[in-house]
């Protein structure tokens, strides 16, 4: 498409359409639009999809993934990846659950310890990546094995039951919505503000976009990477508490494939795997969208066997739309 036709088309569009286009031109807008479309289509086909209980379920089940996806977004924006997050959630949830059934242990300790151990694991990963310069995919692949094996070795994969009722944070509600949903919203907003407006947050984009340039402008990539991996550890810690307190029992194993769900959320949310671009708001929206798709397909009677195939197709379509949109934007800038 040539630049002249694009600008001609732009001039002839009415103002409200231009505004609308501005609004959906970001990945966040596109995701919101997709979500709205999904709600309308599935909701029309089967109104039970829109029942308050179902919407609340979708949000609840998105929460712990979205919180982990916030950390993953920061890691990916910094030009790295962390494959060990699924294993970390398994380990931290087990620690939290085990602590909660120790007699006389205050509940808040079992909530707090994962938030300390998570950043510690993140610090080890970060140190290996930032200071010993081992590629993050290798470190986290190794870390995944160590955590996964270590967890089963230490616990034998037992189920943890009989957590005290006060422990089950994620089963409590506030103003009609489950508590984890508030965690998701608040953490998304805080992380978005931090990454967009504070120097330490902007530095993550700088390091992911161009390490050399970041170094020359006085940013220490090592410090930034350490911070990113510890931040990721903290988010995974919070995510694991939400995960552990959501169910009536916890199995001391690593939930399989969780890291891919989290990475997919971040990537579909518009975080570029090449580093340097993306937002956590997109990641959270994508988490909710992906969860709503999975849930919605049940309501329109898609065979459970084909669920994953449809989901895979939709991920691909989302990525393609985003890619075409970026290409058009690039063409407009050039024109």
């Amino acid at each position, binding site marked *: 498409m040539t630049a002249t036709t694009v600008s001609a088309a732009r001039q002839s569009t009415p103002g409200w359409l231009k505004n609308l286009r501005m609004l959906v031109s970001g990945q966040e807008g596109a995701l919101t639009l997709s979500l709205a479309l999904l709600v309308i289509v599935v909701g029309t086909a089967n109104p039970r999809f829109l029942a308050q209980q179902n919407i609340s379920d979708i949000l609840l089940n998105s929460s712990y993934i979205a919180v982990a996806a916030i950390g993953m977004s920061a890691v990916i924006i910094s030009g790295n990846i962390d*494959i060990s997050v699924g294993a970390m959630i398994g380990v931290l949830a087990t620690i939290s659950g085990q602590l909660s059934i120790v007699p006389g242990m205050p509940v808040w300790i079992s909530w707090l310890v994962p938030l300390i151990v998570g950043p510690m694991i993140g610090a080890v990963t970060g140190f*290996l990546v930032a200071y*010993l*310069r*081992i*590629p993050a*995919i*290798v*470190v986290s*692949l*190794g*870390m*995944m*094995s*160590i*955590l*996964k*094996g*270590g967890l*089963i*070795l230490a616990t034998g994969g037992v189920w943890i039951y009989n957590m005290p009722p006060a422990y089950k944070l994620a089963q409590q509600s506030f103003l009609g919505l489950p508590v984890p949903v508030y965690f998701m919203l608040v953490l998304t907003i805080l992380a978005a503000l931090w990454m967009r407006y504070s120097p330490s947050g902007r530095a993550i984009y700088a390091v992911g976009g161009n390490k050399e340039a970041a170094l020359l402008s006085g940013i220490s990539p090592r410090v930034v990477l350490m911070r990113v991996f510890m931040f990721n550890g903290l988010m995974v810690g919070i995510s694991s508490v939400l995960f552990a307190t959501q169910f009536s029992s916890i199995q001391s194993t690593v939930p*399989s*494939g969780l890291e*891919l769900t989290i*990475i*997919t959320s971040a*990537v579909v949310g518009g975080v*570029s*795997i*090449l580093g340097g671009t993306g937002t956590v708001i997109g990641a959270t929206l994508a988490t909710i969208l992906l969860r709503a798709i999975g849930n919605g397909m049940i309501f329109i009677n898609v*065979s459970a*066997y*084909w*669920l*994953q*195939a*449809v*989901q*895979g*197709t939709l*991920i*691909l379509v989302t*990525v*393609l739309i985003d*890619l075409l949109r970026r*290409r058009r934007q690039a063409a407009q800038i050039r024109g």
Partner: protein
Amino acid sequence: MAVTERPSQLTEPSNPIVSRLRAVVLSKEGILFLIMIAAMFILSLLTDKFLTTNNLLNQLRLVTEIGLMALPMTFIIITGGIDLSVGSIFGLSAIVMGFLWQDSGWPLELAIIMCMVVGTMAGFMNGLFIVRVGVPPLIMTLATLALYRGMALGVSEARSARGFPDWFFDLGQRQFLGIPSQLWILLIAAIIAGIVLARTPFGRGIYAMGNNELGARFSGIPVRLYKLAIYTFSGFMAGLAGYIFTSRISTTRADMGTGLELDVIAAVVLGGTSINGGSGSIVGTMIGLVLIQLLKNGLLLGGVKGDATIVIIGAILILAILINNLVQRRAGGD
């Protein structure tokens, strides 16, 4: 980078054989090989069941599938790409083979061919989107990881295919000239892949793309064609591996090979191929592959619990890369 003379070189007489030997030993592959020999030595002290021809051959039989997929993965990672969908292609092709034969009544020979055709097509799809639409490989193959696995689930509806005729197991469970049959395929494929990567213009193009894709394009390397070729090749090998695996374990299920992509990548990366692209070798990948399996097996025979083995392998993966990094940096960088 300025080349600084190493002190050892100044003191040693410049014997060409010695310096050549030094270069081989200090190469990434050389160090990895030494680590492997050391590991084998320690493992053989732990148990006398480890260092027997029978055990070693049997262990190599078990890694054939991962090894076959690790060959194209080496090419792909050298170009700076990745293929996360191999485990899913592996499962999908095997399922298609099983059900074409069991449900649709195709002759098994034809179903086996279709197994590889499906794998090749799946890989071709990956490659096509990557070069034509410009989807980053990690995202494309992340999407098809879900998509292909989903198709395998959909086609099979979680049933398994079994009851294959006896000749079907020749490849997976029997020997040919004293060596597990499938090992011949891996051996030949590895030699061809090694030669293609190290000694042909195509191979040089792969390295060039990994170092500087734009530069490679400007110097006339058909970057898109090469990429399409290696992702298609990856799909074909995953299909072939799916067939061999089914022949080895006698049945096929849709969840077969879940998470296998990480084993494949671990072998390649442990073998010294840089995840950022530009360097690596087939020899390294093969050593990485064998090292992981021998560790698993040796530790298990030595009485170490399976879960502890996973921990040790994770630590070795990080340590091996760390040692290599340090040695390469001391030797003047690469």
